């Protein structure tokens, strides 16, 4: 008797997932991106207040391939993408796995607005390839992927959907709660939404806006209330980056968390980093959308609990 019936039932979803990943590759190869592989085990991840890395002997499992990929960008690889495993401690829920698959891509000579357009192109390509259409249905909601998608700044989203402003929410330490409760469920309804221009403190590796140093050129993509990608114009100033990492570590220390060593070679390489933008997209969540799945468990062969 087949006791792994749950696994058997996921066959259709896993086939969709595999086809989706092939289509992602096709998109980037057609745009002359180079597919790269960087080590999953690294001596120093980028320190971030709320992302905890697993230890692997005296090193760490990557929480994102960002550090290595940006070194490549700085060394003269202007268009690169990677599909790889990332690891984050304590993250488990309907939309989170402690080990998950990330798609990251980086491109020289563009900023975050150009990158938003490339995201629109990617999704249109994927839905065309997978469905032969420009829309899809997710959890009973029709999502039109046609350009342009919705765009709303974080400040405007707070004014529109929340009872407190972005500034007040930051002062009171209620930014995350308000975003999750009042704003996220309203985004990406009927068509995807870019939520952009985050408070500078919430974009440790992003460039700040020239006109407003309090805001980072960072955006997130929401589809049917589900967050699927985080992109930004890259910070290219090594001294500023070092200060931000030290600030992230200070916040970690305050929260009683371990302090991360600084990725020194990455910091040195920023001197040669061209103007560029990059993005991390959760492949499992992308698969959830194309499989019409309500839980991330439905689009992976094994959850940690099933091992």
């Amino acid at each position, binding site marked *: 008797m087949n006791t792994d*019936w749950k696994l058997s039932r996921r*066959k259709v979803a896993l086939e969709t997932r595999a086809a989706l990943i092939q289509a992602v590759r096709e998109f980037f190869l057609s745009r002359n991106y180079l597919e790269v592989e960087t080590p999953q085990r690294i001596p120093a991840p980028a320190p971030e*207040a709320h992302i905890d890395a697993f230890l692997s002997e005296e090193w760490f499992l990557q929480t994102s391939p960002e550090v290595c990929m940006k070194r490549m960008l700085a060394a003269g690889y202007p268009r690169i993408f990677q599909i790889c495993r990332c690891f984050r401690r304590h993250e488990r*829920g309907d*939309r989170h796995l402690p080990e998950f698959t990330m798609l990251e891509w980086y491109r020289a000579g563009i900023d975050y607005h150009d990158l938003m357009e490339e995201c629109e192109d990617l999704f249109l390509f994927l839905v065309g390839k997978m469905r032969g259409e420009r829309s899809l249905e997710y959890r009973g909601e029709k999502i039109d992927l046609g350009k342009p998608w919705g765009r709303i700044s974080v400040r405007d989203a707070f004014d529109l959907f929340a009872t407190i402003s972005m500034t007040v929410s930051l002062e009171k330490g209620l*930014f*995350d709660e308000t975003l999750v409760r009042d704003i996220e469920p309203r985004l990406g309804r009927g068509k995807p939404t870019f939520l952009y221009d985050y408070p500078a403190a919430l974009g440790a590796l992003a460039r700040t806006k020239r006109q407003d140093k309090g805001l980072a050129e960072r955006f*997130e993509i929401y589809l049917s209330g589900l967050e699927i990608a985080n992109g930004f114009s890259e910070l290219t100033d090594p001294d500023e980056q070092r200060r931000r990492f030290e600030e992230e570590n200070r916040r970690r220390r305050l*929260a009683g968390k371990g302090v991360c060593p600084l990725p020194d070679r990455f910091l040195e390489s920023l001197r040669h980093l061209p103007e560029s933008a990059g993005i991390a997209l959760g492949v499992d969540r992308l698969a959830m959308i194309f499989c019409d799945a309500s839980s991330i468990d439905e689009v992976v062969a094994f959850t940690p609990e099933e091992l």
Partner: protein
Amino acid sequence: MYTASDLRKGLRIMLDDDPYIVVDFQFVKPGKGQSLYRCKLRNLLVGTMVDRTFREVDTFKPADMQEKTMQFLYREGDHYNFMDTESYEQIHLMEEQIGDAKNFLIDNMEVRILLFRDRPIDITLPNFVDLVVTEAPPWIKGDTVSGNYKPVILETGYKVAVPPFIEQGEKIRIDTRSGEYLTRVKE
């Protein structure tokens, strides 16, 4: 002491001096933001539901409860009657206290009953129970695609998805924590 990362469906914790059970749990984490644990909890004494969002740093006392093995006797309206297998004392739980467990309860089943200050407040089922399929659509010959399933009704009235080869009158094993089919039971 529990921390927020211990929160999960079914966990019993003390909150404002009352025992609560987590009935719905969602881990959320906005990009670059902190981990948040959105919970729906039921007050185990009065049955009221509350929504609460916890942060990583929050800690909780476990609800201090006694557990006794009891046998399910019978149901009478919305009263579910049980008997302590040691003292033969009888107690009852109300339907809303039983919750989803009613989908898996059959006469004479041994369960664990939770008592808070001697008051019965909650039930824990065995992780696996075997139940008879009372209604099933026929197996369409040739439908052997793995991953396919069909809905059936069990002796408790519970509806569940099973593989196509399961037939009426057969006994199947259910995981009471997820409510899902596990395997066919050969008698």
